[in-house]
């Protein structure tokens, strides 16, 4: 019995010594070997891997897909009181670990008004309710391509049970809002004659309302003020991030959130104005209404086509002197013609005087405006004959020729090949 006791005591002391050694080793490893500040997760642009690598996409298409940070916000403060206050937060993420554009998704929440952090109250709730419920008073939207959105119930839920896949350093990670806020309150106990206060531990389970209000506060207090900017936000209080292990096909279980902070880029638009219509929303909808407008009566803006109107003048023309006619003939540079060839849907007018910088203009040169579509040609000047040489206005589809009363035209046989109306001003 005594021997057994000695063995027991020795074992206990041995385990205690091991305990001390482990504690010392942990202290050494934690403070001298393992630099916890080097392991930092950065949540950057959520551009899909196939978009990054794709050679088929144009630069414009790449730009369209590129600016997709995990968090995007839109904040119309209505400081000028010319619309409504509008706050929006959008999460850009993936639905699976492939991180391809086909797995891309966006989900967002919208608040009509100016929600402030001080408006939030910590209301006791059950764990099940906290995990399942979405914040009330918001409109929610979903998109599979990040461009077209739909609202209402059939969409991804923004609650504590939702897990999203995001890209960090080109690898898939799982992110979940599961953070809590704990605080202690004290209750006086009558049975200690109110001398001792019993500590009561309170737990608040963060939801997307907290994230939303924090992001809006970050925007409201950004140093650049109104405009389109980017800031970084620390989400480690709210979210847990786990890495995906491709070998096992599962997310790694080691919870490193407590020793790794996660910083994230928040891209935002902060406006002094109020929102006026649904096109200003990042979901193209306000209050789940794609036609939302604060104006009661809208102007009918239905149109078939538009034309960008250009007016070329004397300084856009080139001049060639003719001794035979004792004056200058005008034409257009080939570079000007080529420029307009590459711009569809233009309407070009040409307006010039017959005297420009001491040059007397007597007509339009051979092939001067050929193959260049002109809507209205306006020539003003004193009494004179104005010559249009061979193919001067050929293939121009001229619609209107306006000229001063004293100008008479002398057209070469092949100078123009379409009918036009003539206006004498």
């Amino acid at each position: 019995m005594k021997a057994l006791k000695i063995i027991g005591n020795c074992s206990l002391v041995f385990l205690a010594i091991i305990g001390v050694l482990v504690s010392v080793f942990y202290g050494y490893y934690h403070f001298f070997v393992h630099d916890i500040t080097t392991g930092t997760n950065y949540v950057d642009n959520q551009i899909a891997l196939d978009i990054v690598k794709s050679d088929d996409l144009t630069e414009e298409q790449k730009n369209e897909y590129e600016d997709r940070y995990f968090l995007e916000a839109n904040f119309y403060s209505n400081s000028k009181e010319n619309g409504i206050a509008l706050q929006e937060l959008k999460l850009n993420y993936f639905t699976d670990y492939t991180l391809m554009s086909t797995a891309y998704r966006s989900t967002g929440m919208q608040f009509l008004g100016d929600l402030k952090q001080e408006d939030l109250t910590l209301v006791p709730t059950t764990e099940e309710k906290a995990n399942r419920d979405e914040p009330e008073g918001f409109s929610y939207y979903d998109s599979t391509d990040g461009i077209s959105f739909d609202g209402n119930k059939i969409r991804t839920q923004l609650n504590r049970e939702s897990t999203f896949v995001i890209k960090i350093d080109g690898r898939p990670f799982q992110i979940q809002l599961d953070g809590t806020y704990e605080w202690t309150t004290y209750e006086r106990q009558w049975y200690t004659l109110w001398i001792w206060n019993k500590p009561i531990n309170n737990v608040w389970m963060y939801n997307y309302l907290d994230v939303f209000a924090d992001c809006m506060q970050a925007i409201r207090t950004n140093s650049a003020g109104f405009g389109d900017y980017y800031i970084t936000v620390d989400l480690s209080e709210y979210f847990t991030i786990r890495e995906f292990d491709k070998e096992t096909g599962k997310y790694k279980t080691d919870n490193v959130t407590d020793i790794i902070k996660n910083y994230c880029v928040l891209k935002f638009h902060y406006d002094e104005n109020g929102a006026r219509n649904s096109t200003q929303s990042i979901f193209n909808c306000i209050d789940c209404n794609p036609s939302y407008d604060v104006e009661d009566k809208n102007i009918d803006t239905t149109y078939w086509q538009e034309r960008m109107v250009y007016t070329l003048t004397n300084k856009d023309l080139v001049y060639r002197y003719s001794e035979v006619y004792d004056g200058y003939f005008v034409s257009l540079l080939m570079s000007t013609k080529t420029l307009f060839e590459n711009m569809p849907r233009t309407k070009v007018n040409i307006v010039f005087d017959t005297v420009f910088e001491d040059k007397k203009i007597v007509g339009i040169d051979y092939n001067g405006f050929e193959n260049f579509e002109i809507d209205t040609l306006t020539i003003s000047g004193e009494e004179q004959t104005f010559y249009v040489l061979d193919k001067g206005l050929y293939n121009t589809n001229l619609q209107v020729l306006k000229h001063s009363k004293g100008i008479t035209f002398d057209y070469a046989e092949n100078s123009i090949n379409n009918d036009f109306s003539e206006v004498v001003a």
Partner: protein
Amino acid sequence: MKWYTYIICFILIAVGAFFGIQLYREVKAESYVNGSIDISNKFSQESFNYSSTSLVFYDDLYDETDTYYFEQDLLKVEDFNGKNKDYQIWLNDFILLQSDINAGSIYSVAYIDFYDEYNNLIQASTLNISIKFLSNKTQLTLSTKGQESASFLEQYFSDNGIRLKVIEIL
């Protein structure tokens, strides 16, 4: 052994077990990403480039000229010098020829005609463009006269988006 020796041993074993678990977690933690986030290029831009899927004009209540404005503060442009360099201004696929380019600002005008399905002109809009390159930001102002003009331009930009670029001619 004394009774308190047992308590001390048990405490040391418990502490050792706790730190042992912590040590295991830290040693086994694999989910590290080393590197730094880089958004430094997001605070300025090399050349002016503004794009959006739509825009909305606002009427200034204190302005009696019936002018509607779209104003936007943008990132500062690093290297604009209208005094010594030549630039082209592009609005969507159109070059704006009537542009007044100064040392630190650009003023330009775009004329856009709108036609109905019978090819009748229903609206001729003039869009004034002002870009001011300031030391800490760029101020973009688009303006037009009249609510009808503003509405048609809003519709046009909603249909086509807006891409406004200032390109240096080398």
